[in-house]
């Protein structure tokens, strides 16, 4: 696998209220790579990730997924292979763990069967396998999501993401609401599972230490502009200063 999984070419996004969230962002992520989007809050990380599955529409530039350009016509097909993991998990709190995970198979399930809740035996098996892989136990299956700890909820979120055999996973600050120890566990899990299943990961983070530890590539954002793109080894103290220097300038 040597083709480019995700290509951002000159992406720009200005919201209706005039906030410029992204400005001419261009970089390429190779298939199977674990790419960390690093930046302080408000730097445009979420917006950038959301352009990949159509939750945000860029008003400049173009995104290419596995060789196909993202357009309103290709989006409905392409987004089925792009999973997303959220900071606040975005699970149905009152539903069971099993229900939340199998919901990841909804796009591929015919509507009538989906409405009646008739998922295939293969999907059910896969949901169980994934829950085992992310480190949950059989007794969690019937438990409500709201009764789990934050770390366990994110494990459910990861299991759901892998249900659709994604080629790319967008992880938007997946560990921002977890403690440092659990954060590391979740990052390890995400990286391992993505590698095993050959999924490309775009993971936004604001913690430099986690980025240095887990990334194959770091793209640093500042005010919606990519100011660094390279391996962690090339990420120097001067780059770090540049990311945060701007914040100070803004606050004053």
């Amino acid at each position: 696998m040597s083709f480019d999984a995700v290509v951002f070419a000159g992406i720009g996004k200005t919201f209706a209220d005039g906030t410029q969230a992204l400005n001419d962002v261009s970089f390429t992520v190779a298939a199977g790579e674990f790419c960390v989007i690093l930046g302080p809050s408000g730097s445009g990380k979420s917006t950038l990730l959301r352009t990949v599955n159509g939750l945000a529409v860029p008003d400049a530039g173009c995104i290419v997924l596995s060789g196909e350009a993202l357009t309103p016509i290709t989006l409905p097909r392409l987004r089925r292979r792009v999973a997303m993991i959220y900071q606040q998990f975005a699970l149905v709190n009152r539903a069971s763990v099993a229900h939340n995970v199998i919901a990841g198979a909804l796009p591929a399930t015919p509507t009538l069967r989906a409405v009646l809740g008739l998922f295939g035996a293969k999907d059910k098996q896969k949901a169980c396998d994934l829950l085992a892989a992310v480190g949950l136990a059989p007794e969690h299956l019937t438990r409500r999501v709201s009764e789990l700890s934050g770390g366990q909820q994110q494990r459910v979120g990861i299991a759901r993401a892998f249900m659709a055999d994604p080629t790319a996973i967008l992880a938007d600050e997946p560990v921002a609401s977890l403690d440092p120890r659990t954060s590391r566990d979740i990052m390890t899990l995400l990286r391992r599972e993505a590698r095993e299943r050959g999924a490309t990961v775009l993971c936004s983070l604001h913690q430099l230490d986690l980025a240095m530890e887990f990334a194959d590539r770091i793209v640093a954002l500042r005010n919606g502009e990519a100011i660094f793109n390279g391996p962690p080894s090339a990420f120097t103290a001067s780059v770090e200063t540049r990311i945060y220097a701007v914040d100070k300038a803004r606050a004053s």
Partner: protein
Amino acid sequence: MTGASLAERRAVAGWAFPRWLETRTLVVILLAVGLLIQTGRHVEVDRMVRLTGDALMAAAGLDVDSQVARGVEKIAGSLFPLQVAKRTDISRIEGFDRTELPLLAHIETVAHQVERMNPETLTMEAHTETVEFLVEPVGYLIHVAAKLVETLEIALWGTVIAIVMSAPLAFFSASNLTLNRYTYMIARALVSGLRAVPELVSALFLVMAYGFGPIAGVLALAIYSAGFLGKFFAEDIENSDVKPQEALRAIGANKLKVLCHAILPDVMPQYIAYALYVLDRNVRTATVIGIVGAGGIGQELKGRFDMFNYSHVGTILVAIFVMVFVIDQLAARLRRRYL
């Protein structure tokens, strides 16, 4: 910095902690008080207080002439003793079978003297006449119980039909689910239209259309409750957590799939709570709308009231009280356990 110097510091320019009572709040309170005084005069609150005070003093044993106390005494006197048995003139029972009496029943023979004019002598003569009654010792209680059950059945079916009707209404009147502006407006109009007519009023018209009996009751309850459930269900759907919905939409799940797997699981517990509340309420309302002829215990109550059978009315009132009390307790227990 020490505490003293902190306290002595002057206010920082531009910062003023909001006052507890703003002028606007004060004006609103004054207006509200004025409105209450004005409307209180119309609904005779002053007389209500005076009459109630008299009644309380009379009840406490003071020598006060209280109109209310006299009224209550008269009602209580005529309602008690409660009617328990059922007594039927046998000559009025069609095809009466003396050998097969209902359970616990017996025949009572009443002899009474009748003065009748003898056509030959043209004088009044005393005769002894006997009338036979079939006495069922708890017959009326059983009759009332059957009517209570009918009331519960009316409430149950009114609620079930309302649930079925309210689901599509709620989907189309929730701004995040509706198909387009027109379905939204039509559904909204329907939901408020259904709620606009109180059950007692719609029952009055439904009795004209469907005749006396439970059908009118069921429909009257269903119509109002569907509007009620539709409104609250739609509000819940609109306020349900958007994050999981977005998560499913992002991987390409269509509207129906998002509805069934992100919205419904989120709002269902609340919806069940609403439905139980409506059922509880419909039991009470079903007793009331019976009074205009829509079946159940209310219809029996109205009939007895109009015939001045006040001891029967007493039995019915006690029965309604017991039923509502039991259902309240049951519902509270169920709610504690399952919600």
